[in-house]
C-alpha cells in the first residue's frame, strides 16, 4: 500500500494555489503537512479525498482507501455520542464502535447528546469516527484544534496504533504530536501566478 502523489496542482475558487506537489506515503508512515495559513493545505487534502478534481498530476490511490477528517466534525447535536458514531460505523459497514469509544475515552459519555459536549469532547468524537471507517489512509486537517494535552496524547496514540497496524496518516498540523514522522512543507509548492503549469484548465490559459 502506497499513496504516491505526483506533480499535483490544485486550485481553490478557480485560483491555482499549489503546483508540483509530489510525495509518497507508505504503510506504517506518518507524514506531517506544514505550511502557513492559506497556503493550500485544506485544498490539497480535499483534493486527495476526492472532493475536488486536481488541475494536473496524479494520485496513485483511489479515494475509497482514504478516510478524511475535516475541520468540521459533522456531528448531529440531537443525537447521542454513541448514535453519532454508530451512524458512521454503519455507513462504512464496520458497525463496531466499542474500540473507538474506548480509545478516545468517550465510553462514559455514550448516552449524552452531542449538543452537551465541550469543544474538545466533540473533537474527540470526530476523531473517533476515523477508527470506525476501517480505511487504511487517514487524511487529517488540523486534528488537534480544541484538544487539551491529554487528549492530544490520546490522539497521537491512536495514530501510532493505526500506522503500526499497517495504516498511514497524512496530517496537517502546526503542533508537535510527538510522533515518528516525516515532514512535508508545501511552502515550496506555492503556485507561481505567471507560470503556465499552474494555469492548466484555468480560464485565461487560452489567452497566452
Amino acid at each position, binding site marked *: 500500500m502506497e499513496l504516491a502523489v505526483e506533480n499535483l496542482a490544485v486550485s481553490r475558487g*478557480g*485560483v*491555482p*494555489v499549489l503546483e508540483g506537489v509530489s510525495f509518497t506515503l507508505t504503510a506504517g508512515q506518518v507524514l506531517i503537512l506544514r505550511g502557513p495559513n*492559506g497556503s493550500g493545505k485544506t485544498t490539497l487534502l480535499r483534493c486527495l479525498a476526492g472532493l475536488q478534481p486536481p488541475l494536473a498530476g496524479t494520485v496513485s490511490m483511489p479515494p475509497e482507501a482514504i478516510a478524511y477528517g475535516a475541520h468540521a466534525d459533522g456531528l448531529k447535536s440531537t443525537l447521542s455520542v454513541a448514535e453519532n458514531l454508530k451512524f458512521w460505523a454503519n455507513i462504512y459497514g464496520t458497525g463496531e464502535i466499542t474500540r473507538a469509544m474506548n480509545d478516545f475515552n468517550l465510553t462514559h459519555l455514550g448516552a449524552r447528546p452531542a449538543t452537551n459536549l465541550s469543544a474538545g469532547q466533540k473533537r474527540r468524537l470526530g476523531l473517533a469516527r476515523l477508527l470506525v471507517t476501517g480505511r487504511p489512509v487517514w487524511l487529517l486537517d488540523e486534528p488537534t484544534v480544541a484538544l487539551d494535552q491529554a487528549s492530544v496524547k490520546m490522539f497521537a496514540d491512536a495514530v501510532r496504533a493505526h500506522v503500526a497496524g499497517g495504516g498511514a496518516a497524512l496530517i496537517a498540523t502546526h503542533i508537535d504530536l510527538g510522533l515518528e514522522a516525516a515532514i512535508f512543507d508545501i511552502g515550496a509548492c506555492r*503556485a507561481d501566478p505567471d507560470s503556465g503549469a499552474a494555469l492548466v484548465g484555468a*480560464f*485565461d490559459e*487560452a*489567452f497566452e
Partner: protein
Amino acid sequence: MPMSLWQYANPVKFMALSAKVLPWVTGLTVLTLVTGLIWGFFFTPGAVNFGTSVKIIYIHVPSAMMAINIWIMMLVTSLVWLIRRHHVSVLAAKSAALIGLTMTIIALITGMIWGQPMWGTYWAWDPRLTSFLVLFLFYLGYMALWAAVENPDTAADLTSVLCMVGSVFALLSRYAVNFWNQGLHQGASLSLDKEENVSDVYFQPLLLCLAGFVLLFVTLLLIRTRSEVRRRRVQALEMRERMADG
C-alpha cells in the same frame, strides 16, 4: 490537425473571429429587419377578418419562434460545456438567456395587444400563451442561478445541469398545458392556427422578418458573448492578482 469548429471555442480565436464578423452581421441584420418590417407593415393589405392588427405578426411570430429556439440553443451549448469544457460555449448560453427572456416578453406582450381586438381579452389561458408564461419562468430561474453563484465555473456547471433538467420539464409542461386546457374549455378554442390563416402575401415578408430576428439574435449574442468573455478574463486576472498578493 485539420481546422475544426471546436477551434472557435478557444476564447482568443472566438474574439478574433467575432470581431471580424460582427460589423457584417450587424449590417445584414439592420437591412433584413428594416426591409421585412416596412414591407410587412406598409405594403400588405389589411386582412378581411383581422383588420390591420394582423400586422403585429411580423413581430409576434418571429419573437415567439426565437424564444423557443434560444432555449434549445442554450441546451446545446450547455451540453457542449459539460462534455468538452469550452468556456465560450457556456458563456454563449449565459448571454443568450437574457435575449431569450426578452423575446419571450415581446412575444407575450405583442400577443396580448393582438388578443384584445381578436379575442376581446388581453389574456386567455390558451395552451400556447400559458406555455410561454412557463418558459418565461424557466428563463428567470436560469438567470437567477447564474447571478446567485459566485464561482464562475461552479455557476456554469450548475446552470448547465439546470438547463438540461429544465428542458425536460419545459417539454413536459407543454404537453401538460395542452392537456389541461382541453380539459377546461372543451370545444371552445381561442387559439389561431397561424399556418392556415397566413396567405402568401403575408408569408413572404414574414419569412424576411423571421430571418431578420435570427440575425438580430446572432448579432446580440456575439456582442453579449464578447463582453462575457472579457468579463471572465477580467475575473481571471483579478484572481491572479489576488494570488500574487496573498
